[in-house]
């Protein structure tokens, strides 16, 4: 009985069954999975609806309007009708207007993103591709591997980039060769990512198994 106690403890039992139900998807889509899938989506939707109020609307709309008296905020209410105009025939074009406006803002922010996120990657690619000759023999020898690495870096960057030109005619045999080798190098890079990701992903699975075996069933006992 004492043994059953922790197994029947709702705060362990429920997530445990949920975990098993979700895992069962790997064998076949089944009623248990479907049940918890629907529960999952319901909970998620309920949560996001609630925090839309608590985290966005209350602090940034309701309080400024109702508490601080910035009554202009109320204008948004009628204007937000434009979102829901898609459900009408007569006003549907207004939804295009508001969506257009939002995609306009999304586009506007991209300039800064481009400057802040991507330009630095250009500057980060400035590499010294020649060994250091000024500080004596040993310094030169020491700097050779780095120089070679940097040379390889630039070469790979250019080769891969070559593959991604679409409009320029790639009739030239050498260009084609470079582009193809670029694609091949890209595959090596992607393979490396694949390999590097496995551990973190499996760690998550093992952690869930640990929850089932240690926390719930308590057939695994640990130092902690």
């Amino acid at each position, binding site marked *: 009985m004492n043994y059953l106690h922790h197994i029947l403890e709702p705060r362990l039992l429920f997530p445990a069954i949920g975990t098993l139900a979700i895992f069962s998807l790997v064998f076949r889509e089944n009623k248990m999975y479907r049940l918890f899938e629907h529960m999952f989506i319901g909970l998620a939707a*309920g949560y996001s609806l609630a925090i839309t109020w608590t985290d966005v609307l209350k602090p940034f709309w309701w309080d400024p309007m109702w508490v601080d008296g910035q009554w202009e905020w109320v204008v948004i209410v009628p204007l937000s009708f434009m979102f829901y105009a898609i459900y009408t025939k007569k006003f549907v074009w207004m939804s295009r207007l508001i969506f257009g406006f939002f995609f306009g803002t999304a586009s506007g922010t991209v300039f800064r993103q481009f400057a802040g996120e991507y330009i630095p990657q250009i500057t980060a690619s400035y590499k010294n591709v020649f060994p250091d000759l000024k500080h004596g023999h040993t310094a030169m020898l020491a700097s050779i591997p780095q120089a070679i690495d940097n040379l390889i870096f630039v070469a790979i960057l250019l080769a891969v980039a070559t593959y991604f030109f679409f409009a320029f005619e790639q009739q030239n045999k050498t260009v084609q060769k470079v582009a193809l080798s670029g694609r091949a190098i890209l595959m090596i890079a992607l393979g*490396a990512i694949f390999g590097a990701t496995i551990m973190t992903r499996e760690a998550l699975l093992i952690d869930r198994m640990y929850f089932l075996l240690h926390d719930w069933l308590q057939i695994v006992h640990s130092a902690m």
Partner: protein
Amino acid sequence: MDPFILPLAVSGFFGPVHGHGAAFFGKLAVGIVAGILFLVGLQLIPTRLRKPTIVFFTFMGGLYYVLDFFLPVSRFEKALVGQESFAGNLLNVFGAFAVGLGVISLIGLHLKTVSRQREGWGFSTVLIVSFVLMAVFTLLNAYHPKGVIVPKVPGLQTNITTGDVFTFLFQSGLTALDSAMFALIGFFIISASYRAFRIRNVEASMLMASALIVMLGQVSLGTALTNFIPPQTVWGNLRFENLAQYLLVDINTPALRAVTFGIAVGLLATSLRLWLSLERGVYFDQEA
């Protein structure tokens, strides 16, 4: 004061109203009427001018951020940089009002399924119930976390509060299912690698080779295989962990950076086309 309301803000009329007197509600009414008038005004625009109107508003939407990026701070401090957080909030709030679109789409579909007793309506009921429960208790938890749901009875150590119910729904429900779903990848990555890493062609074999090396560089098995190589010599570079590091750092970085350049430019180009309505894409090309 916000620039979107700035022009008239000068006159006291648009200043904040304190207390919830007639003045306050009067102005709320004014605001709502103004909004409705704006909508009516839009509807009065002749059909052939609707497309240009959409183009105009799309442009205006982007304009603020573009100016904010390109114009000198010194001159436009207040009007631009000073307003970034306000603009952000305004868009968040406005966007938040669209949340109904999601709810209508999701809950609407499942309500229909239930009402018409379509196949699987039982599941839809579960979805709706858990939706309502979660929404209600998240709000209750935000306002009265200590509110009592089930009073203390024999067999219960303490009484159950709204906070407890929320914690259960959130921790044992949402969070648990989240991590369970995430953990599925642990299964799928196995079958994916089993299928993917066949030496069908040069590319596949390269993908496989580098993945294998990196994997071996991460576990004792790999370390064991190349442990005979003294780490400090030149040959030390051939130890799996070092090969893996070489692939992940010296090959990966330039290769992915080249890809990123393309993606960055594509992003910029697409936003330009959208912002300036150069797009002859499906959506914005429609005669509204």
